[in-house]
């Protein structure tokens, strides 16, 4: 095949795929600025003929999207902070500290990966109910506070820390806790960032568990609220697009800003141990 042709075909196909990937997102943004009903005309407009912020005003005004936004943000920050701490401690322990039963426990954890999370949802709901954790941030965060994937990721990374370094610190009389905080955690900083993004996005985008556990409207997260609104406001397309923008934009920005860490984690997680 002619090399010049190959350049055009390959890059043309890539441009086509990029268009298909991005078009729905760009169109969402465009429609969110259209006045009510403008997108339900033929031919369907791509760009707004008049730009308005009415949809956003209505969202944050009468619909109270600000509240849902804060719920999503609080839950995502809370679950990232807790799960990063727990996973890092456990991942380091499994990689570098000898304790009885370590390898057996780790194997069991990996084995548990085959169990889909939904199997635990119904009983977890029944367990949390008498504890008064249904309809609370705590109830929504609880199953996300640690993850086998997170522990695995940290362990992979922590195995690269030289034992000599830790031994030297021990000989100098540093306590284990001090070694962890001043030597291990700084060395694990990149994997911490990766883990934080994964849990932030995981929590922000999660749907089924918050739908089950947060039945009180004032506690809804963005996806739960948006799903509910989209059932009520089937006709209000422009409003729904604005709601989607509010839901998607934060995670897209987080991803774009910290893309490298995200991709690193994706690779490390897909190398099966």
């Amino acid at each position, binding site marked *: *095949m002619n*090399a010049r042709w190959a*350049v055009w075909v390959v*890059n043309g196909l*890539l441009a086509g*795929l*990029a268009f298909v990937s991005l078009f729905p*997102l760009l*169109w*969402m943004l465009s*429609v969110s600025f259209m006045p009510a009903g403008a*997108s339900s*005309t033929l031919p*369907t407009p791509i760009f707004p003929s008049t730009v308005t912020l009415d949809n956003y005003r209505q969202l944050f005004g009468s619909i109270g999207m600000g509240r849902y936004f804060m719920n999503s943000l609080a839950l995502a920050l809370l679950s990232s902070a807790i799960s990063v*701490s727990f*996973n890092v*401690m456990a991942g*380091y322990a*499994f990689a570098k*500290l*000898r*304790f009885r039963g370590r390898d057996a*426990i780790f194997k069991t954890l990996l084995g*548990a990966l*085959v*169990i*889909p*999370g*939904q199997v*635990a949802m*119904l*009983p*977890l*709901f*029944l*367990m949390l109910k008498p504890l008064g954790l249904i309809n609370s941030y705590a109830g929504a965060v*609880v*199953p996300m*506070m640690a*993850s086998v994937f997170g*522990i695995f990721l940290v362990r992979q990374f922590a195995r690269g820390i030289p034992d000599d370094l830790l031994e030297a610190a021990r000989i100098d009389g540093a306590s*284990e806790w001090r070694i*962890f905080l001043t030597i291990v955690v700084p060395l694990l900083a990149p994997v911490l960032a990766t883990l934080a993004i994964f849990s932030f996005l995981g929590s922000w*985008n999660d*749907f089924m568990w918050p739908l089950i556990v947060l039945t009180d409207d004032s506690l809804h997260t963005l*996806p739960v609220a948006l*799903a509910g609104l*989209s*059932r009520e406001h089937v006709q209000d*397309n422009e409003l*729904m*697009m604005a*709601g989607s923008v509010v*839901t*998607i934009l934060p*995670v*897209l920005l987080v991803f*774009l800003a910290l893309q490298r860490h995200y991709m690193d984690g994706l*690779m490390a997680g*897909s190398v099966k141990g």
Partner: protein
Amino acid sequence: MRKTQLVGWALAAPALVVIAVFFALPVAAGLLLSLTDFDLYALADLSTLRFVGLQNYARLLQTPLFWQALGNTFYFVVVGVPVSIGLSLGAALLLNARVAKWQPLFRTALFAPVVTTVVAVAVIWRYLLHTRYGLINQGLESIGVGPVDWLGNPHWAMPAIILFAAWKNFGYNMVILLAALQAVPRELYESARVDGARPLRQLVDLTLPMLTPTLVMVGIMTITGYFQLFAEPYVMTQGGPLRSTVSVLYFMYEEGFRWWNLGNASAVAFALFVVIFAVSWVLLRFDRDPTGATA
């Protein structure tokens, strides 16, 4: 070394306690739950709870809607997974081509749908698929294909959801496959070219065999994920039309949290687990990779 013993346990404990209490325990409880007739009455008064053995499972096998949900889910997996992975592989090959320009930019663009929120992009797609105002139908119309009632026709609703899922997810596997492609030594291609192998030959005889372990791994991960179909039908079709998009998890959700038949719903969850486990196991048996890279 008693001290590191203690420290090791202390550091691992918080995560292990969380996983034990909020995952392992509920899974075990779920198995028991699936053997009871836990329903709305039991929710109010536990003394009405009865142990019913395998009755929930037996009844499930006689419930037409369960079979339909299982069939719909299999449809989604059997068609959706090859479509998604095919798209991922195609995109990865394009990105890996020597002549590809702006590779990082394209990679980011193609990956963007992966990080978006399913519910929100499902809302967008519901409108893109609108029979009258949807841009997809208007595009089809311009090439002479009549309007398709994507989400209103029981024959088209699942294909529409598959299309959406492929768009949303292909970037993930694309990145993994791209990394695997980049790990293939360039010298192998050089020697293949010296031997006179054309690009298509190189793909079939060299690239695909090298990718097999990664493809199997990606396949199992994707199948496992696709069996857990829920948010897409919840937002786009609410299980309709004519229950053609009720997935197993959608059925479980309705059974559990709409009708409060929690014993029954738990049996559905375990049935799904067994199906996923069996399918993954069979796939791993099929993979007779001599290096055992995926085992």
